[in-house]
């Protein structure tokens, strides 16, 4: 099949949206943290923890949405660890983030081995099923691509709108953006920079975990080691690519996912079979780096990103 032909199939765009969904959740989460001035490198591990927690909850008998909530809760817990160390104590966000990733990943694997000691093939759960939205799903091309997804995917799109609304149209959002730009001014208003930043990191981490949970509860129906596979790091690049704006980040995630879906399909063509498959697997990472280079000059980085705030220091 020709590459142009692939681009006009509904199944290709449906796959792109599916691949984009976990990235949308996690990118939104990272965006909230960074908008408040905190780089959260715990993202990769928090996604692993979310993927496991949501799946495990459903496997042990809860409903799917309860599973999503459990994943979010676990993510927020790791977010709390990150927030405590980086905000009031002002520790290096790089080191703490990597530490949280290692902590979340290893405790997830530990919990997995405790819960399922002798299992070689992880059990499957009854994952989210596609729900065709009446009328809309009948639009050609767009219908099957956008409106025949699982409810978990729809939630991602709703969340982008909600986050954008909260960030730009509410006092809470203003406070979050302000602590990322000029924390001293926020403190002068009598607000607690610490509380706002911690809140942003905790909520953002919850969203990251939901991104992980999508992998085990909607994209697949089981938990595997290494299943997050660098998606968290890609989301950090996507935040930069989207210049810290929810709408642009959504667009970036879909573009990126479309490219990923395309490489999977080209891999299966006669043309693609002439190259080692690893070349195709490298593409998403290269693309992320290229996106960073392309956007770096124009990026409007939050002014207080990675700058700890200590009251009383002038």
């Amino acid at each position, binding site marked *: 099949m020709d590459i142009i032909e692939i681009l006009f199939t509904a199944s290709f765009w449906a796959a792109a949206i599916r691949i984009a969904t976990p990235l949308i959740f996690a990118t939104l989460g990272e965006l909230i943290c960074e908008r408040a001035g905190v780089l959260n490198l715990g993202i990769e591990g928090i996604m692993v923890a979310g993927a496991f927690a949501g799946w495990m909850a459903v496997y042990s008998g809860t409903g799917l949405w309860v599973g999503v909530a459990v994943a979010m809760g676990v993510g927020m817990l790791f977010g709390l660890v990150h927030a405590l160390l980086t905000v009031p104590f002002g520790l290096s966000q790089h080191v703490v983030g990597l530490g949280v990733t290692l902590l979340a990943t290893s405790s997830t694997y530990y919990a997995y081995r405790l819960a399922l000691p002798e299992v070689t093939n992880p059990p499957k759960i009854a994952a989210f099923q596609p729900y065709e939205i009446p009328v809309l799903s009948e639009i050609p091309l767009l219908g099957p691509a956008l409106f025949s997804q699982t409810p978990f995917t729809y939630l991602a799109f709703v969340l982008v709108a909600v986050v954008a609304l909260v960030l730009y149209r509410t006092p809470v959002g203003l406070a979050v953006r302000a602590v990322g730009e000029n924390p001293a001014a926020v403190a002068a208003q009598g607000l607690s920079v610490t509380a706002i930043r911690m809140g942003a990191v905790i909520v953002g981490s919850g969203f990251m975990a939901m991104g992980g949970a999508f992998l085990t509860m909607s994209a697949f129906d089981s938990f595997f080691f290494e299943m997050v596979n660098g998606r968290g790091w890609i989301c950090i690049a996507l935040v*930069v690519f989207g210049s810290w704006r929810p709408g642009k980040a959504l667009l970036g995630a879909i573009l990126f996912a479309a490219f990923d879906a395309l490489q999977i399909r080209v891999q299966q063509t006669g043309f693609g079979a002439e190259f080692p498959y690893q070349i195709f697997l490298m593409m998403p990472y290269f693309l992320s780096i290229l996106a960073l280079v392309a956007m770096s000059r124009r990026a409007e980085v939050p002014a207080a990103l990675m700058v700890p705030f200590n009251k009383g220091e002038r």
Partner: protein
Amino acid sequence: MRLEPIRNPSVARRVVPIGLALGATIAIASLLASVAGANPFSVLGLILKGAFGSKFAIVETFNRATPLIFTGLAAAVAFRAKFWNIGAEAQLYAGALTTVVLGTGLLAWPSFALLPLLAFVAILAGALLLLVPAVLKTRFGVDEVVTTLLFNFIFLLFISMLLEGPLKDPMGMGWPKSARVVAEARLPRIFEGLRVHWGFALALISAFVVWIIQTRSTLGFEMRAVGLNKDAAAFAGIPVNRVLVKTALLSGGLAALGGFSEVAGLKGSLTLDLSPGYGYTGIIVAMLALLNPIGVIVAALFVAGIFVGADSMSRAADVPTYLADIMLATALLLVVLAIMLTRFRVVRD
């Protein structure tokens, strides 16, 4: 709450928090092991016994510590200049790659010439690999954390491609592994009968060289200045970007030397599981060592001890091996917090 710097911290202030951090790490690990059904009070003893309890265990700990000294130095050097190289994993593989490419029979040189060449080429490969993120940072302002992280994935796929293609061992029974390096390309053992190889000595020498660079050279001074305050360093006439690139070359080279040492000293060939995350663990080593090159040696032995000890403990007490990683992550986070508390006091307001 607010943090207030302490002018002259007492000895207790400098030691107690770190002791507490390590104690808490052991307590958490014991608690987690008891969740898995082990006796919590036996955990520490079993770890110590597993890491240092026999000649075999000590040799194992030293062999584990060797690559960690290299990657720990790589992180320590870079972090001192606030250059966040998280790509030591890829750089280590770069050094391992050049070692098998040149060491599997391409050059029929005697040992005394071949080994230095292999080490030199490995350093070059690791340095070049980190040069790309370094230049992206200095030229385009691209954050090196993300680029070095992503390079790890790219480079491992590249290695996987080579191991399934041109580098695949025809005698390897279909496994993605390279051919073994020739006898002249093997680092000999330091003591007859003990499995500790000259890679460990090379690691110690490297730590010493880095210490000399950091404390006795202009470059070391410049790296520290750039790390403390980039703008002030630039104002004082230090070429910040050039210093960052030099730092990157040194850091990448050190990590790659670890790859050379693993292949030439221990494994003899290249596989995709040559490193169980030594590049990432090196960051923990560097942080625990307070970025001090001599401290890296101690921290690497400590971390290797946890790995080897926890491995043996988890087999003895039937606890999942991931406990070692949890211990390291906990130790990292708590020690970083403790270091801060040695210099600041928390004030309520």
